[in-house]
């Protein structure tokens, strides 16, 4: 673990020795927004955990816009106006570059290592581009771990109906179906977890995979659920952040998240094979209505992407989609405008067949994931068209419906999984 700590950080940790709470903030060129996040965290720690020893760790990916300076110089904000009593312990602040593959996961790894080194009881991670974070988020994410024996707290946000489409269309319903826990935002970005779980994460040999990048969120959630850690959710209100991560383009982001999820299906096959129903996960915090930022989506462009994908990538799709799925896809994808529609069952079959092909390497994994992007855009366009006039409750009901289709079709996944395995094992020379 020593290789994760630069000399300066090592000395600083020796000086601090131990802490009750570690709050990690991964960053890369976030000077514009990270000051607000650090202030909110500082106030949150002082206000809600005045008797606990706490450390704020900024794990930076080599920012060139003085992000680290902003972290170290950020004031604790209007704490005198917010605090009834002053904290017993001062919150320490560390800003350090991380080692390894550039990405959010590598930044988290350093935070896990710091938490372990300081023998932290609870750890919280928050994104550095948040504009809607409040001091209360720190309490909501850390309190269930410190006082209620939870190991993992996922965020629960209200989001615009077009926002989080990988979450709504793939990750949430599949996590629920495969692992039996209804975690609404499994790749939310802000999490609370126990020091015990942080140590468990560190034991895993995944840091040269996509987990070191955007795959970290789903990896943390699925690992916590699959390995039987106690999981909860915290209601945080609305999540508002910078329009776009500068390093994130859709193809690589999709590849990293969905690829990590498919890889986890391989690791935890014994778990998801035996899950037959899901259960609700306790929700901490007080749910309230909030306004969300309006979003515009160009569905024509997405439909065009899907149509081009089906036309140009047919040969690739035929390597992992069943003939029936390919026929259905071709017949649905050629409709234009408001008539464009990809049914739930077809979408679920495409994802299940892709997951199976990923497992058994029917096609190169990278190519498989890249070829899914046009299909995902098509499905997103279909969803957007369908919920154009729906309110938030109706959209949630619609996502719930999709989850039910994922569950109903789970036997198809198992059947497909077994069939391809059998095919691979008994490949005859031709």
């Amino acid at each position, binding site marked *: 673990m020593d290789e994760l700590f630069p000399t300066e950080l090592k000395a600083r940790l020796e000086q601090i020795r131990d802490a009750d709470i570690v709050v990690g903030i991964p960053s890369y060129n976030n000077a514009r927004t990270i000051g607000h996040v650090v202030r909110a965290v500082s106030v949150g720690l002082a206000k809600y955990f005045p008797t606990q020893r706490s450390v704020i760790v900024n794990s930076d990916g080599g920012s060139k816009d003085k992000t680290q300076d902003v972290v170290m110089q950020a004031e604790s904000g209007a704490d005198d106006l917010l605090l009834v009593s002053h904290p017993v312990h001062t919150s320490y602040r560390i800003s350090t570059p991380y080692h390894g593959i550039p990405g959010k996961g590598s930044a988290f790894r350093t935070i896990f290592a710091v938490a372990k080194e300081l023998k932290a009881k609870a750890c919280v991670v928050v994104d550095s581009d948040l504009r809607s974070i409040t001091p209360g988020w720190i309490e909501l994410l850390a309190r269930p771990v410190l006082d209620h024996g939870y190991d993992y707290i996922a965020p629960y946000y209200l*989001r*615009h109906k*077009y*926002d*989080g*489409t*990988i*979450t709504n269309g793939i990750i949430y319903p599949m996590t629920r179906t495969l692992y039996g826990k209804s975690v609404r935002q499994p*790749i939310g*970005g802000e999490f609370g977890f126990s020091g015990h779980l942080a140590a468990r994460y560190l034991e895993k040999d995944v840091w040269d995979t996509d987990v070191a990048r*955007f795959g970290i*969120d789903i990896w943390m959630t699925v690992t916590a659920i699959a390995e039987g850690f106690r999981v909860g959710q915290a209601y945080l209100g609305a999540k508002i*952040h910078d*329009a*776009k991560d*500068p390093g994130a383009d*859709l*193809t690589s*982001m*999709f590849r990293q*998240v969905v690829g990590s999820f498919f890889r986890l299906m391989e690791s935890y096959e014994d778990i998801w094979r035996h899950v037959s129903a899901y259960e609700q996960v306790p929700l901490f915090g007080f749910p309230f209505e909030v306004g969300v930022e309006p*979003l*515009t*989506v*160009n569905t024509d*462009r*997405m439909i*065009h*992407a899907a149509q*081009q*994908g089906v036309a*140009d*990538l047919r040969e*690739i799709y035929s*390597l992992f989609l069943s003939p029936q799925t390919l026929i259905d896809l071709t017949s649905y994808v050629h409709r234009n405008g408001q008539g464009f529609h990809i049914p739930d069952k077809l979408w679920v079959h495409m994802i299940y067949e892709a997951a199976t092909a990923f497992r058994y*390497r029917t*096609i*190169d*994994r*990278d*190519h498989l994931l*890249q*070829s899914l*992007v*046009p299909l995902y*855009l098509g499905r997103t366009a279909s969803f957007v068209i369908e919920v154009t006039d729906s309110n938030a409750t109706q959209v949630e009901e619609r996502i719930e419906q999709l989850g039910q289709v994922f569950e109903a079709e789970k036997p198809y996944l198992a059947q497909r999984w077994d069939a391809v395995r059998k095919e691979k094992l008994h*490949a005859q*020379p031709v």
Partner: protein
Amino acid sequence: MRSLFDRMLLDPFNRIADQSAHVVPILIMVLVTLIIGGFLAFVARWLTLRLLQLARFDHIVQRTGFSSMIERTGVFRSPSDLGARFVQGLVWLFTILFALNAAGTPASVGLVTRFVDYIPNIIAAGLVLLLGVVVSRVISRSALLAAVNAQWPGARLIAGGVRVLVMSLAIVIALEQLHIGGLPLLVAFAIVFAGIVFALAIAFGLGARDMARQWLEAKVRGSVAEEEVFRHL
């Protein structure tokens, strides 16, 4: 004195019969050798495949990363399949050489000797071509996916062009290994290749000047595409 009939018909017939008596057994032997060799090649491939599968060869190769490269080609099902087909090819090669040698004629023996001397060149050329097939498939598929995901029109044309270019390069190198064409072929290829690259550069820089500027601006400034204003995650 022999009759005209003997000289006109019987003698040539006898000569053909003599020659056939000499050649037909050889042909039969060659044919039998090829049939047995073909059968042995099939058996060798089947056995090799089973042995490699038993030894979990695919699993071992998978760790090296070479496995995905083989699968990307779409030619071989797995590293075991590649190994099995290679053994089958070798058995076929030796069968053909054995058959030619068994024929025993000066021409076939000379052909075998020349062929044996030529084998290293053939192996080198074969490997270059195999590598060309693998690399061209991988690169063209990657180009196709990148072009489709960037929503470029003519994505298949781009992928096809990439594949042709890479295969052309492999063929030129293979021919050079076989001492066919030699330097003129290499120079001709270099001229054509450089010409294509130059033409594309001019087409992009001049013909599509605005597009080139927008693309570079987007790369340098990291502009947000219209449809990416919302979060996918």
